[in-house]
């Protein structure tokens, strides 16, 4: 009887209900102004994948860079802005602020 319930499940490449825009994490930092800074300042502690899977707005990247610099990432003042622009341009917000769902208040 069990066999009559389900015969087979075939995985399909395409997703039915696509989640928000996803960017597969890259194993290298993409070319552009800021690549060399990212490699020098960030690769020491973590793989590029940690950064390249992110989707953040300007405030988000500013917070991240501030945190990393406080923890020892060697980035000077001019490099900071270049790096923030580089990350924001390539790994910017996944959804615009207006589209962010308010959702159910958590208890």
């Amino acid at each position, binding site marked *: 009887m069990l066999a*009559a319930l389900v015969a087979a499940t075939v995985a*399909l490449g395409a997703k039915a209900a696509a989640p928000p825009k996803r960017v597969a994490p890259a*194993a290298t930092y993409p070319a552009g102004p800021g690549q060399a800074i990212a490699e*020098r300042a960030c690769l*020491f502690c973590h793989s590029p994948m*940690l950064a390249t899977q992110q989707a953040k707005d300007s405030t988000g990247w500013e917070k991240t860079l501030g945190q990393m610099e406080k923890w020892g990432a060697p980035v000077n003042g001019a490099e900071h802005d270049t790096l923030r622009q580089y990350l924001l341009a390539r790994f910017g917000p*996944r959804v615009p602020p207006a*589209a962010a769902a308010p*959702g159910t208040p958590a208890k």
Partner: protein
Amino acid sequence: MTRTSRRAFLAALARAGLGAATLASLPRWARAAAAAGAPAAAPAPPPSGADFIVRNDRPEHLETTLEALGRSWITRNDRFFVRSHLSVPSLAAADWRLALTGLVTTPLTLTLAELKALPQITAVHTLECAGNGRGLFQLPSTSGTQWERGAVGNAEWVGVRLSTLLARADAAAEAKHVWFEAADLAPVPGVPPFLRSIPIEKAKDDVLLAHTMNGEPLSERHGFPLRAIVPGWFGMASTKWLTGVRVENQPSDNHFMVRGYRYAYPGEDPATAPPVETLRVKSVITGPVDGSIVVVPRRTAKNKRPLLRVQGFAWAGPAGVRLVEISTDGGRAWRPAGFMGDTAPGAWRAWATEIEVTPPARVSVMARATANDGETQPPEARPNAGGYGNNSMHKVTVSVRAI
């Protein structure tokens, strides 16, 4: 670390012109590689293949696919999700010690053999990363690994009750919190060590210090030689590579307590937001897989009701899970699924049900769990800035065809 990114790392170091002093602080494999002038084999590369989604390869963030999760109540060690904050330490069992210090009458120092000589407990507990589901939150910014649904697993642990050690050390009356000190460190000294603390009531209840996972000694990536297991709490409480248990009168002020792991909503200061502690009630559909084609037997005189089997797991915090319900009309009508298989306190429950279908059809199935304390999964959890505790209901859509 994959071969590609290891090469990229070394190439980038060369481009950056890092000198010998810098190389001295690199991981062992990188030093060896630099000395040899060619990429060396990294120790224990991340397991790859169909069972894992590599979200990050250094430090390792490995997510189990739902197909792999769905195969058994116990999640096999080689497909159990991995989340490490800092570099994985290589600890030698012979040199390793656990120190129990702080507000105690008798501080303890124990070898692994001494720990194993104490009364041993075997228990099955589910671990879920607090960031599981972060990548599904609709927020412009969520900082951290973009997990979807597979940063969760269920294993059988063997170890010593923390309460046994606290009783032997005779924890003082003013003891209020237990700090878990660990051996993992970042490659640079400015990064705070990873440290979590839990209230003494929880520490004296059901917390295990485990050395064995599904019948095998803990692997390096899962915390060899000893890790905490804090049942019903999100995974970061279950500190890996444990070296110290410190009894204190207040919670730790470590970064990963005060800034990280807080339910702060956009614009709020994490330091004043509620901490991320116990698991939120949640269910996951492991089969059928979202977007798949499911083939069912054709409708015949004998087989009047083609059925689609739907199954998964459900879990909750210390209260435990009471009920799983299924909806096929977008959440208007719900009917209960059945629990099946094994059960243990602090472990998830397998559930399954069958839905009558009329192929060819497109079917959307939603699952929601309810805990014994009455909490029910929300349709959409409110997104917090850290992306923690996303227990939004899981929905899968499949094409059902007949053969």
